């Protein structure tokens, strides 16, 4: 879609592809690591009047490596009655959904993994794969707590998939495209009542959609107040109860990487993506600045996620379903209707 650039211009297709694969892996792991350190270790510690890790590296920044090393050393335990294959495969299925999700997120005019015309649709579709992984983990563990957690997760994720998708529909109607890259351009080229100084981030017009997306995202990530499936004080840790070592680490990475990737999608859809006001979006410098802008927005949005996570108590399962079906979905449908009417009218 954009002309050749310095970065990828002279490279062959396979070279570009391998670069993007490496980029994708880096993006997922980098985001997960950043979020674990910045939010889980530090932000939460300060909220709870603690210091967090301080010993490993400056301000404990190398604690992450220590944690990974600890998990890698741990024994990989299989419960005796576990369905071995399903139990072993479940974390990979969950993580796969995250990796598939990250490919639709653009980081600059040419810094994209795939440039799909159905990007939004693809994102919503592959995000559902994690449900299968969680159900596999819940069933394969042969533990009652895991089973309850897995079933709760399935019910919850299916219920909250709907408001998530419906919240996005408003953006798609307004932008007139499902291509994530074009949605960024639509926001960059937009104007607020004729003033195009900062483009038109859709959070201004789709404020309700943004709110719904963030709530549904919190539920999709099974973070408090929607952490019924994990519910440490009642189901121990739900579907993750029986996992240890490397496989637990995969779930853990998956949790934080998915938080990052969902925030990235929210940033693209509602906050203008990688675009910086005042710089021509096709300028090559955006391929370098774009990912940094995205990372900033991701950290900002996940801050909200973790702020809620460590402040609120959790809903009960029935209250959670009521919220989805009786509040969020009607609100999302109304939002779509209003957006559609305004789109036709103007």
């Amino acid at each position: 879609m954009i002309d050749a650039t310095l970065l990828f211009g002279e490279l062959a297709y396979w070279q570009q592809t391998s670069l993007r694969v490496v980029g994708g892996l880096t993006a997922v792991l980098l985001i997960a690591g950043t979020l674990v350190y910045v939010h889980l270790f530090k932000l939460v510690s300060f909220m709870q009047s603690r210091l967090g890790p301080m010993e490993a590296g400056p301000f404990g920044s190398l604690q992450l490596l220590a944690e990974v090393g600890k998990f890698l050393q741990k024994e990989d335990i299989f419960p005796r009655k576990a369905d071995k294959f399903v139990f072993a495969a479940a974390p990979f299925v969950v993580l796969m959904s995250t990796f598939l999700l990250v490919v639709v997120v653009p980081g600059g005019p040419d810094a994209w993994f795939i440039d799909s015309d159905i990007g939004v649709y693809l994102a919503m579709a592959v995000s559902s794969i994690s449900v299968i992984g969680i159900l596999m983990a819940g069933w394969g563990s042969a533990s009652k707590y895991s089973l309850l957690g897995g079933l709760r997760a399935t019910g919850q994720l299916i219920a909250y998939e709907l408001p998530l998708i419906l919240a996005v529909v408003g953006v798609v109607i307004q932008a007139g495209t499902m291509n994530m890259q074009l949605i960024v351009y639509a926001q960059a080229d937009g104007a607020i009542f004729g003033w195009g100084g900062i483009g038109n981030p859709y959070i201004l017009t789709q404020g309700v959609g943004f709110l719904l997306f963030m709530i549904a995202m919190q539920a999709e990530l099974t973070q408090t107040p929607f952490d019924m499936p994990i519910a440490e004080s009642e189901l121990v840790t739900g579907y993750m109860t029986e996992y240890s070592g490397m496989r637990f680490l995969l779930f853990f990475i998956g949790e934080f990487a998915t938080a990052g990737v969902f925030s990235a999608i929210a940033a693209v859809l509602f906050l203008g993506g990688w675009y910086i006001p005042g710089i021509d979006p096709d300028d090559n410098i955006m391929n370098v600045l774009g990912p940094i802008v995205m990372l900033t927005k991701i950290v900002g949005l996940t801050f909200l996620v973790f702020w809620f996570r460590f402040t609120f108590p959790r809903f009960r399962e029935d209250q959670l379903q009521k919220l989805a079906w009786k509040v969020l979905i009607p609100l999302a449908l109304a939002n779509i209707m209003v957006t559609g009417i305004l789109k036709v009218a103007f």
Partner: protein
Amino acid sequence: MTAISDREKLSYIAAQAADARLNLELETEGMTLNLGPQHPATHGTLRIIAKLDGEQVISAEPVMGYMHRGYEKLAEVRTYPQVTALVNRIDWVGSFANEVPFILAAEKLMEVEAPPRAQWIRTTLFEMSRVANISLFLGDMALQLGATTPAFFAFRDREHVLNQIEAVTGGRFHPNFDRIGGLKDDLPAGWITETKRAMRKMRQFCEEMEQLVLGNEIFAARSRGIGVIPADIGLSYGLSGANIRSSGVDWDSRRDNPCGLVHSELDWKVWTHPDGDSFARFWVRLQEVRESTKMIDQLLDGLPSGPIMAKVPRIIKVPAGEAYVETENPLGVMGYYVISKGDLVPYRVKIRSASFSNISITPWLLQGVYVPDIITILASLYFILGDIDR
């Protein structure tokens, strides 16, 4: 003992709850879920065998005794002063309060009375152990409902009280400070000012909890109407303390059955709540912490001077007889029934601990609720495992 709230209204609520409970039409093959003995929500080793239909509890039965340490029997081979070191460990979060009723029972048998200063300091420490104990509950119940931060705040602010207890007694958890006829030591210099500052901090903590937990809609949705105990049912199961006061029964051992402590000379209020649900139990306990901090301020202001030890023989032999003394401990009514045959050691000690009675209502209460509500109810009943099993 009078119930302030409308009993008919409460039994109506209970009937509604019972109607909403078992949905036998959809009954499928049940599942038995063992909550515990190792489970984060039981903070100890309580086991609850819950028969589930889906996520609904058909029947639940608590299994106690995993932490039975046989204190009643051990007390029979300890001299009277040695027993306090044992009973400290019954309710380990508010341990000084465990010593008081035993010492009072021994004093009753020996017919000695502690000097006024000792009584006032004893009451101060008694109330401080309540503040330390219940402030932990306030954080813990929020933690059980999924909010992690209040628990850290509770541990942080309880420290102020524990530091003050440590300054007097030398022990943070197990003071072992109460003596027959008085106390081991007098207060250290500067303690009163420091304690008043700590109490101010605890009142701030209560404010914080009120905003962070009590004012939260999700907390209210999770705890209102959950685990409703009507006053008469609660009384028939022998509930005591904040658990029964939150069902509208206006009864507090400190006010209605005073024995050796100086609560009657203070200006304070017994808090009750008419609802009897988990929310009410949290609310009543929050008010009690506040009330206790105010009581401690009054106690420190009115502290009489004088000796802290009555005249007791060096080797304590308790004359033959029996005595039962109960006090309003942080978890509820705690009583010691001591029989003496005139020896160095008690002939028999029966310990009535509050949590054992409080937890006995769970089979009735847990019937028909959902799995998440088990946790809410257990957290709101507030038991300490050592207090159940002894």
